[in-house]
């Protein structure tokens, strides 16, 4: 126990200074989304222990909100589970982005469970230019784990509070709680959008998501929005576009 606490303190020490407060605040915001999920779940007919079990084992906000929402609306739970997994397909891309931070063995097995929008947004956020490379890597590893612990605590705690609150208020919309998830994810993405091509990718991704959401099964639209990356794959204007050139990354 004491050993674990010491390890966590060492991780905290490795997190870049200017990320520490944002990570704590992100965990609070995740807890707030958890409250939304708890209220939604109770009003959809779920028991508090079921919501908590989902919160701990799935640990993916938007998928769980979709799952309880669909089941509450009378959909088959198996269909709802399939929809939730579809929503979580984007985690595979996130997993690739943080893969170098997770060495083989139990760290990788456990760390994979913590791969989500928030932890990856922090772990891949632009490093301070001054930091030497090994320090930057250690900082990213620590940032990933500390953000992961924050989400793994904030989400179920928020869910429990929401489940309790759900017995009093039945509609999360009255408090604007349904805006918390998109506001949080958007606010996490904004600092990474500095200019130029990333901005173009972001705008195009938003357009694709808005156009396709009503047309495709729940959760698939964000995956389709990855097509926006085509913007960065197109060679710059100094070179004319080549036809079918393999390895378009160059």
């Amino acid at each position: 126990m004491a050993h674990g606490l010491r390890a966590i303190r060492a991780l905290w020490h490795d997190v870049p200074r200017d990320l520490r407060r944002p990570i704590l605040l992100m965990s609070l915001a995740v807890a707030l989304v958890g409250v939304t999920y708890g209220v939604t779940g109770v009003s959809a007919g779920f028991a508090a222990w079921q919501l908590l079990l989902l919160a701990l084992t799935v640990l993916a906000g938007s998928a769980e909100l979709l799952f309880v929402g669909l089941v509450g609306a009378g959909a088959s739970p198996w269909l709802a589970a399939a929809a939730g997994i579809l929503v979580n397909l984007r985690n595979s891309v996130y997993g690739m982005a943080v893969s170098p931070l997770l060495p083989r063995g139990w760290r990788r097995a456990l760390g994979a469970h913590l791969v989500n929008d928030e932890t990856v947004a922090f772990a891949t956020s632009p490093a301070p230019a001054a930091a030497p490379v090994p320090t930057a890597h250690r900082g990213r590893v620590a940032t990933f784990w500390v953000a992961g612990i924050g989400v793994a605590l904030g989400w179920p705690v928020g869910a429990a509070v929401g489940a309790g609150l759900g017995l009093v208020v039945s509609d999360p919309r009255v408090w604007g709680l349904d805006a918390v998830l998109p506001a949080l994810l958007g606010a996490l993405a904004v600092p990474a959008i500095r200019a130029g091509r990333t901005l173009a990718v972001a705008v195009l991704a938003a357009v694709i998501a808005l156009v396709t959401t009503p047309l495709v099964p729940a959760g698939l639209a964000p995956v389709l929005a990855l097509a926006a990356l085509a913007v960065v794959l197109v060679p710059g204007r100094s070179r004319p576009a080549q036809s079918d050139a393999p390895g378009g990354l160059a």
Partner: protein
Amino acid sequence: MSAVVAAGLLLALGTYATRRLGVELGGRVLGRAAQVEQLLEQGVVALLIAVTASAAVYDGAAPDGWARPVGVGLALGAAAVRAPLVVSVLLGAGATALLRLLGL
């Protein structure tokens, strides 16, 4: 309700599989070129923004009205001028609730 719990655990297993798949593939298929790393970072931005846009505007497959998109837009604006994360989020939720109260 036991089918719901079983389906929930299936969701948990499937979700873990999506994550683990990415983590395992990451190093192997792509290698670690700087450009690939940058591409993945831009992919993260694309996914975050796509989920944001979709969750702000739609309730399922149908548009949800103006209050939430406007609220979320204000939250993004706050983040763009470097407001703390929680301020942006609370602004988004508060504005959405207020606009609904006003009947938007």
